[in-house]
């Protein structure tokens, strides 16, 4: 157990990985576009613009290197990466780890976004991302960058994913989850594993209303269509699948937000629950009087597993 901040925790994981992974390379994109490129055995500092850095890193990844692209020094990296990833064909997507700093978690199509909140989670996220078979984006919050905490030396401690055989990830902060708080959880790989362990339901769920009252009210219909297209299902199927997860007849509104980085929680003014489907996460805002905690959990678990997305569960008591 060592006391580290986010940067040192990630660096420690990379140093640890460099000892076992011969093909590891860390590409650091310099903020100064006229800087001299520096090439060390495992580290490359390049004066590239953000999206050129992504293409360069993808080239390395496709040629067989386990590549970590560090764009923490690039301003507006999130938007530039999003545009570049949007334009990237699926065939070109090799396993790649992108590390960036942003106060808001960007929506990133086709990538797994992990937003660790402390050094321990940063280390686990980097360990997970180095094993993942997809593009992983680790978004560090600059406000937490220099906060230190105890980081275990266990190389098997992962965060935000359990799709590695034999790995036993923990459900982060689930045990301490309280109403009004939020937690990032991952899509469960096994059916027996819940997405997040919730405390017992504070209220008894009401009797089913008998009639399925599902409405799709997208703030931006194009966004919803785009999400469904990315997930390779029709918009109606997406809506039906989200609804089917409830197992109850509570009123659920499927909301999408076209502004990346906006709060994932949309207050359910006109519904008992809101399920927010983004490119990289799901959010549920629900009324415990209308929807039991078990039903909410099932909705999130099944939808997250179906879409293979990390989910953000926000518990909010209404009324």
């Amino acid at each position, binding site marked *: 157990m060592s006391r580290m901040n986010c940067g040192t925790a990630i660096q420690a994981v990379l140093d640890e990985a460099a000892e076992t992974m011969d093909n590891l*390379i860390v590409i650091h994109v310099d903020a100064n576009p006229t800087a001299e*490129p520096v090439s060390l055995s495992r580290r490359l500092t390049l004066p590239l613009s953000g999206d050129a850095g992504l293409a360069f890193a*993808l*080239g*390395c990844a*496709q*040629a*067989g290197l386990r590549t970590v692209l560090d764009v923490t020094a690039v301003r507006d990296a999130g938007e530039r990466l999003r545009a570049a990833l949007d334009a990237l064909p699926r065939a*070109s997507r090799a396993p790649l780890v992108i590390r960036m700093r942003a106060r808001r978690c960007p929506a990133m199509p086709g990538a797994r976004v992990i937003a660790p909140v402390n050094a321990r989670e940063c280390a686990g996220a980097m360990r997970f991302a180095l094993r993942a078979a997809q593009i992983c984006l680790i978004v560090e919050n600059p406000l937490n960058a220099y906060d230190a905490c105890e980081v275990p030396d266990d190389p098997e401690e992962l965060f935000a994913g359990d799709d590695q055989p034999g790995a036993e990830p923990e459900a982060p902060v689930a045990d301490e989850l309280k109403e009004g708080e939020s937690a990032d959880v991952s899509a469960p790989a096994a059916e027996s594993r819940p997405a997040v362990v919730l405390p017992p339901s504070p209220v008894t769920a009401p009797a089913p209303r008998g009639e399925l009252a599902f409405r799709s009210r997208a703030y931006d219909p194009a966004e919803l269509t785009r999400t469904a297209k990315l997930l390779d299902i029709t918009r109606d199927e997406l809506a039906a699948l989200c609804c089917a997860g409830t197992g109850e007849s509570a009123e659920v509104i499927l909301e999408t937000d076209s502004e990346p980085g906006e709060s994932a929680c949309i207050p359910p003014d006109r519904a008992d629950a809101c399920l927010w489907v983004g490119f990289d996460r799901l959010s549920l805002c629900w009324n415990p009087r209308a929807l039991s905690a078990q039903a909410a959990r099932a909705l999130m678990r099944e939808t997250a597993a179906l879409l293979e997305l990390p989910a953000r569960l926000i518990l909010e008591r209404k009324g």
Partner: protein
Amino acid sequence: MLCLKELLLKIRALLSRLVAHGGDEPLAAAAAVTLALLDAGDLYAGGPALLPAESALSGDFGVGPADPSLAAGAACALQKKNEGGVAAAAVAETERLYEAISLAVRLNLPLVLLVSCSEAALDELSSRVMAADMECIPVDGRSVMKLLPALRLAVDKAREGDGPTLIECVADQPLDDEDTPADPLERLNSVLILEGYATPEELL
């Protein structure tokens, strides 16, 4: 090492495939020659995809411009592996190209870039590339027989660790004589027949 006859027939097969996919003919000719010269383990970026060179003869293969940074990244990976691998790519002339050129020169990457350009634009392209200290070779993009030595030089140079090269495939260079066909495939066919490597019936 293939003999000239085998090499030209391989280039013809690749060129027929690339021309069938449409796109820029001089670039297709340069891509076909490059692919014929690459070994197993080398990489070629055609269009959005980065493929092992040996897969070019099987399956679909695009000739459209690739991202030069993607090719530079692949070349960097091959350099790190230190197995003599070469990355090649057909790219368009954009600002991104010069960013990748600058990087490839500084890191001495094993990279061969193919750019299609008109004769009028050749001077400006050459001067910008040479200003970045990168060797560039202008060549008639419609003649396989002229592309072959230039590309062999570039690929061998990259494989030896002597740095990147840009091949400027001139699309509208004046023909040597009036009887020379403009189409690269037709021109290659006439060479194969003239040299006795194939009969007109075999090339149908």
